[in-house]
């Protein structure tokens, strides 16, 4: 479990890349260079990076409407993702999907998803395929606490528990389902407690702590690979931006935001690694350059040709 600073560096870099990618997107939306809408992952980076750090490309994940962090952490290409956001043909979905509908099947990223909790059955089906083929890989289904109130949460976890499927159900509890605060939509203090109702382990994890996330992920992945069935992990975390680009965040206080930012996941990992300010500055410059390159690639990429639908709607 103990990773050396050398081994931790790529994870710190990935968290920083996701942060800078999302910050740049916010600017690009504000300036009107990108159309549509987007749900930014900034603040939650330790969850995606910590969990994907215990997976290989043979493992699968499904994601949510807030999926850029999962895409990058699973090994998706930043340039391609940016191109998709610009509506360019060089995006993974060739401009047809946009922010909420990207996938990279080469690295096991089965797709972000515009339907709240739509990914849970999909992930469960991928886990069933693994089970039927008697393979050793596993699946993580990411969803928000809002998604955990959909019927698919109950149906999927119950099915995976009965069949002991190799899957982790990871609830990123960022306290707000759009504007709806946790205590307006839940009568119990944790979502992890629901695991008992399915006869599986549930665990509350500090989602701002890379090491805690990774350790919980390792335990659950081991269970999955050994045929012991699913685990429900509740990652307590916070999104720094609003729900989507039009959100003025009137439902929460600036004080609450500052309190969460004082426990920023990237800063916590940096301090624990004894990574100096100078080193971080250099890493940051490298990451910002990568984001610049992604924007440049996206802007230079061609628009998709208007399609003959008969040729592309069916496989």
């Amino acid at each position, binding site marked *: 479990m103990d990773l050396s600073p050398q081994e931790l560096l790529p994870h710190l870099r990935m968290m920083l890349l996701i942060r800078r990618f999302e910050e740049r997107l916010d600017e690009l939306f504000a300036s009107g260079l990108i159309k549509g809408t987007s749900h930014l992952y900034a603040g939650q980076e330790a969850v995606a990076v910590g969990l994907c750090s215990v997976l290989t490309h043979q493992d699968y994940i499904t994601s949510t409407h807030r999926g850029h962090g999962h895409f990058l952490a699973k090994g998706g290409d930043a340039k391609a993702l940016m191109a998709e956001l610009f509506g360019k043909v060089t995006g993974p979905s060739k401009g047809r999907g946009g922010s909420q509908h990207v996938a990279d099947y080469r690295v096991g990223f089965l797709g972000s998803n515009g339907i709240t909790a739509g990914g849970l059955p999909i992930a469960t089906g991928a886990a069933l395929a693994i089970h039927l083929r008697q393979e050793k890989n596993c699946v993580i289904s990411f969803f928000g606490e809002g998604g955990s109130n959909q019927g698919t949460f109950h149906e999927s976890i119950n099915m995976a528990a009965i069949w002991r499927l190799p899957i982790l159900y990871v609830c990123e509890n960022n306290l707000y389902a759009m504007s709806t605060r946790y205590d307006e939509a839940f009568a119990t203090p944790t979502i992890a407690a629901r695991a008992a109702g399915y006869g599986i382990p549930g665990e509350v994890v500090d989602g701002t702590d890379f090491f805690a996330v990774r350790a919980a992920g390792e335990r659950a992945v081991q269970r999955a690979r050994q045929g012991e069935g699913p685990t429900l992990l509740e990652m307590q975390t916070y999104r720094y931006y609003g729900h989507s680009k039009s959100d003025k965040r009137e439902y929460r206080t600036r004080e609450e935001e500052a309190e969460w930012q004082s426990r920023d996941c990237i800063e916590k990992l940096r301090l624990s690694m004894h990574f100096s300010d100078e080193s971080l500055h250099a890493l940051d410059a490298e990451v910002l350059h990568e984001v610049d390159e992604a924007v440049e690639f996206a802007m230079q990429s061609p628009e998709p040709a208007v399609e003959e639908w008969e040729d592309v*709607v069916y496989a």
Partner: protein
Amino acid sequence: MREIYYSWALREAMAEEMERDPNVFILGEDIAEYGGAFKVTQGLAEKFGRERVRNTPISENTICGVGVGAAIVGMRPVVDIMFQDFITLAMDQIVNHAAKFHYMYGGQCRVPMVIRTPAGGGRCYGPTHSQSLEAWLMHVPGIKVVAPATAYDAKGLLKSAIRDDNPVFFVESKLLYGIKGEVPEPDAPDGDYTVPIGEAKVTREGAHLTLIAYSRMTGEAEKAADALRGSGIDCDVVDLRTLAPLDGDTVAASVEKTGRALVIAEDCKTAGVSAEVMARVSEECFDFLKAPVRRVAAADTPVPCADSLEKAALPDAQKIIDAAVALLQQYP
């Protein structure tokens, strides 16, 4: 050639495809030892085991979603939804996931899954167990809709559907399960036949009127055509067999010949399958038409339970005959 039940033909198709391809498996409620609500999967669990003939909890949306998730990583699930009415519970996974993934992820994945659904009335099951909702799926790009009328087509189309790389919504008629038809022995030279998706079939030929139908209504249309022949009205019967993609060419060729079209469908009239077929005929055959395009479809009511009411609400051969005679009298 031997005659077997429509339901047996479906079962043979699944068994043969499971033998042929280890990625094929079946998923649904009460499909293992119980054999499914209509006994279509009877015997398959004994033959292939409960891993591949998998009973599920009552969770239609997730059953369909699990099918999608397995399909995108290489399996070929056949999902059994006990009554077509219950797709209302699964529309999110069918419409937003199964039908869209191939397109919206830029062609990176395919969704080779079949959703089998017993549809239609005629058994006094009442409003939530008798509907014909296939028009809803015709409206969604990315999913194919198939509705066989005979045992032969049921087997051949289900095999094609299982081998297809797209999601296929497979419409079965509860009343057809117990109807026999000719199907080759599996070990006959043509035993491994398939019926291509997307091709309609002309099952009766006549010069005066085209009857266009699918699923159980094809048989009713054929009965009507046989009776009408005695009154001097000769009908083409076009069995659509596939609703999406619709075989507009076969329909148009017939209507161009007869100049008259009567569309028959068991689903509700308003915005139903018949509406789309009529629109296509109007668009493509206008210059050949000698009469307005008409239809015989279910009443715009829930399907009632009482036998007398249900018969009144649903189309049948007599209603087709009456509509055909009226059309020919008005537009001789």
